[in-house]
């Protein structure tokens, strides 16, 4: 009884409400995405994704009850075991998994399909939090930084082997967590410069870019003081930049698979081949753009209803929202997400333990990355990377994964005052 009271009284209801709102809106939009006028099936029909999603929603409630019932210390204590178990599943799926759309990332259990990589997110978050909360941990210590990096990088490597690059990229979100915990911003800035160079390389011809870098470097040398040390630094910097440009070019043209190359090309110039690799982005933008300010009305979207947008109920669910609810709808959902993210960082900040704070920031970062990449790709600001919109997209594993991620935080948060009692 005492346990129950604590949950009801101390749980952060604002987060719960935002969670419920996003899940409910997602469910309505999943129905809109698969709705077929001629068939007149209800939203509860189990042959539709909306019906199935309802099962996932109900089962998520059961998961929430379980999470809330387990002792809050469990997640701290069992962090490495959970991490180890999920890593085992990631290995096992390579052997026992079912191949779906080119990726071996699914277990088929009966009629259901489970994607262990969705659970790797919260498991990694727990493990990182656990490791970073150890006594004497310092990000400036190379050993600590290295081990933290390993914990973060092992799951995405396994996921890349499965063939699901999109989900692997999500683990880049931990950079935000590390930043919060004191990572030298220079590393992040270098990373951002690398990304900028990457994009520039894709947009411009390699030769043009190299000449531009050469000219810029020469000008820097001519303008400033002509000291040997300074000149050497600039030349060295130029050489590094040039090698990055060259390797990006090599990476894109030689190492990426054709479909990945195309996704990047589509981002840069979707109009070059609107029927080929630009199809998804073009149709997605048409769907959202045609929604206007107020939208076409619920179940009235033609782009989604007539299958012009691919993956409508999963990765491109935002199109349905944009087309039927217009800018009002999309902005409302963006506000809900930003509120959720801010609220989670607030929860994280009020934790007394490093473990809980790091975990809280992990949750926020992972949701943020999904949010940014998923919506970004539907409006043509990101390449098409197949990751779902948290809580909104159709998919059991995804919904379960985010539910676990959020509600472990809420459970820990509800008990934050008890930490001192330990």
């Amino acid at each position, binding site marked *: 009884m005492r346990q129950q009271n604590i949950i009801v009284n101390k749980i952060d209801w604002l987060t719960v409400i935002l969670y419920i709102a996003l899940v409910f809106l997602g469910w309505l939009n999943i129905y809109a995405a698969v709705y077929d006028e001629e068939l007149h099936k209800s939203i509860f029909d189990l042959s539709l994704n909306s019906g199935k999603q309802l099962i996932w929603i109900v089962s998520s409630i059961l998961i929430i009850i379980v999470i809330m019932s387990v002792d809050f210390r469990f997640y701290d204590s069992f962090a490495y075991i959970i991490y180890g178990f999920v890593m085992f599943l990631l290995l096992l799926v390579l052997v026992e998994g079912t191949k779906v759309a080119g990726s071996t990332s699914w277990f088929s259990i009966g009629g259901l399909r489970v994607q262990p990589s969705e659970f790797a997110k919260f498991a990694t978050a727990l493990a990182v939090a656990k490791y970073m909360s150890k006594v004497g941990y310092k990000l400036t210590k190379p050993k600590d930084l290295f081990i933290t990096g390993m914990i973060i990088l092992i799951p995405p490597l396994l996921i890349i082997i499965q063939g699901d690059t999109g989900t692997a990229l999500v683990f880049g979100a931990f950079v935000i967590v590390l*930043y919060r915990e004191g990572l030298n911003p220079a590393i992040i800035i270098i990373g951002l410069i690398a990304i900028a160079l990457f994009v520039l390389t894709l947009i411009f011809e390699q030769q043009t870019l190299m000449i531009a870098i050469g000219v810029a470097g020469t000008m820097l040398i001519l303008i400033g003081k002509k000291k040997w040390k300074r000149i050497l630094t600039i030349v060295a910097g130029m050489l590094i930049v040039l090698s990055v440009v060259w390797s990006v070019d090599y990476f894109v043209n030689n190492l990426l698979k054709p479909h990945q190359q195309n996704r990047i090309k589509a981002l840069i110039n979707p109009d070059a081949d609107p029927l080929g690799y630009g199809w998804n982005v073009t149709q997605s933008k048409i769907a959202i*753009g045609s929604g206007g300010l107020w939208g076409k009305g619920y179940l009235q979207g033609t782009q989604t209803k007539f299958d012009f947008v691919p993956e409508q109920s999963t990765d491109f669910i935002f199109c349905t929202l944009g087309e039927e609810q217009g*800018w009002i709808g999309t902005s409302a959902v963006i506000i809900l997400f930003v509120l959720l993210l801010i609220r989670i*960082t607030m929860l994280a900040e009020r934790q007394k333990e490093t473990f809980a704070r790091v975990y809280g920031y992990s949750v926020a970062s992972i949701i943020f990355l999904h949010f940014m990449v998923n919506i970004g790709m539907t*409006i043509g600001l990101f390449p098409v990377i197949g990751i779902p919109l948290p809580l909104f997209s159709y998919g059991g594993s995804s919904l379960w994964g985010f539910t676990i991620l959020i509600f472990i935080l809420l459970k820990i948060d509800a008990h934050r005052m008890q930490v001192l009692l330990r």
Partner: protein
Amino acid sequence: MVDDNRKYVIRFVFILVGLIYSLKLFQLQYLDDTYGPAAEDNILRRIREYAYRGIIYDRNNNILVHNDPVFDIMVVPKEAYVEDTMLFCDLLGITKEDFIKRMEEAREYDMFQPSVFLKMLSKTDFARFEDHLIDFPGFYPQARSLRGYDHNSLANTLGYVGEISKRMLEKDTTGDYKQGDYIGISGIEREYEIELKGKNGVKYKMVNVRGVVKGSFKDGKRDTLSVPGKNLKTTIDLELQEYGEWLMEGLAGAAVAIEPATGEVLSIVTSPSYDPALLSGRLFSKNFAVLAEDTLKPLFHRAIMSVYPPGSTFKPLQALIGLQEGVISPHEQIYCSGALVGDHAPPGYYDVKKAIQKSSNNYFYIVFRRIINQGLSDNTFIDSRLGLEKWSEYLYKFGLGHPLGIDVPNEKGGQIPNPDLYNRMYGENRWKWSTINSISIGQGEILISPLQMANYVAAIANRGYFYTPHVVKEISDAGKPRERYLKKHFVGIDSVHFRTVIDAMEMVVEGGTGFRAAIPGIAVCGKTGTSQNPHGEDHSVFIAFAPKDNPKIAVSVYVQNAGQGARAAASIAGLMMEKYLTGEVKKIWIEQYVKAGHFIY
């Protein structure tokens, strides 16, 4: 804990991304208005609903032209997918190379918009293909109709329908036509195009990404229904028409039958002709090329386009002008020695009736001289000019010298010699009666079409007036022909004079050269003629009407290179009148005589 600003930096990044996205969405959804139409383009398919072309009936409500449903196979290249090319080609009866070529053409036209892949698949061919349609996404049928015929006559008058040409499309001001639409190109189909075509409709359907139709767009608010064309009831008697064409088989020439009381064309035969079905459907171009090359010119509508000297059939007209001008009187006996011109009629005294009956060339020489030289001027050249002027005015009133204005395109007007013509030929004041006297017996510069001949006979049958001949008597439910066909045209000859000429024409059939045209129990009035042909055998000509009182039919028959009018032309005219008036032909021997075809002996 590291510096506290970092948590704000992170929150700032979250808010910033949310804000950037919201602004980008505002641009995408509100500011940029190209996406709405793009979404409509995706799902909208314009489906043209071709209007049913009006049906054409004969005067007894037999169908002359109907519509046969055919199907154009359309393709949307983006959606097209053919797994079994062999089966596909087999079903449509095309070769693989053909398939590749057609697909390429469609792709070049537009990837997303439908274009015609294969035209005019017949109903049965389409039924075969339809069973497999589901296997060939991106292909769909477009219902259209072709002109169909249950008979094989009247081709040149009905005309044909064909795809509108680029030039016609450019000239079109109605905006009703699109490339690939059909339009009447000749005959009634062209003349009554506006009435027949109706109005095409458009249906907007929504299709999904695979091109499957998912329903109408906005509940069909933008759709327009097709309006069928108006039906036409023609004046043609199909039975008479078919009979006339049968008689003329193997002969070159024309036969026109008119109902004098109304100007309605009962039958308009031109020979040789063709089966109208040849110029409808997929083999149009091939068949058209063959017909156009044919040295017998089956596409040439002789009844309205060929003109030639009328020969002796001109004599009743000459007599009427003489009587009206008062240069002869009905009972005046004129001695003809036969010295003026070669003549079949023996020398002796002739009154006008006898002159017509015996077809006296010398008599009409004298009559014509009296018409031309009435002594209005002492100068014989001027006198001749004044006379000819008066004479030609009479002929114009009979509908000669200019197109009559029948509702079949490309009618020729022929030629009536007037002072201008001879001034051009010989110079002003350099011609007189003796220069031009060959026209007194219907030879020389007079050129008349078979239609004009029939019309002039109808005017005689009416004792002084005619209605412009026409082939359409009712446009849809209006129940009447075009306004101008309801107007009486008087020829300017007193009705009393007709009595004389008509009596004479009766004698031609009862006891003269026109005996082959006689119908037992019915008084037939006619006149034979032989149109001189310097290039070969003379042309056989005959005009007639019957019955003498209250005439029901007036005919002109013209048979090329068949010699005297008394033979081929008179026989055919008589048979056609008998057929029309009595419903059956009793003069089997005449029929056999015509079908045997030995007219020169």
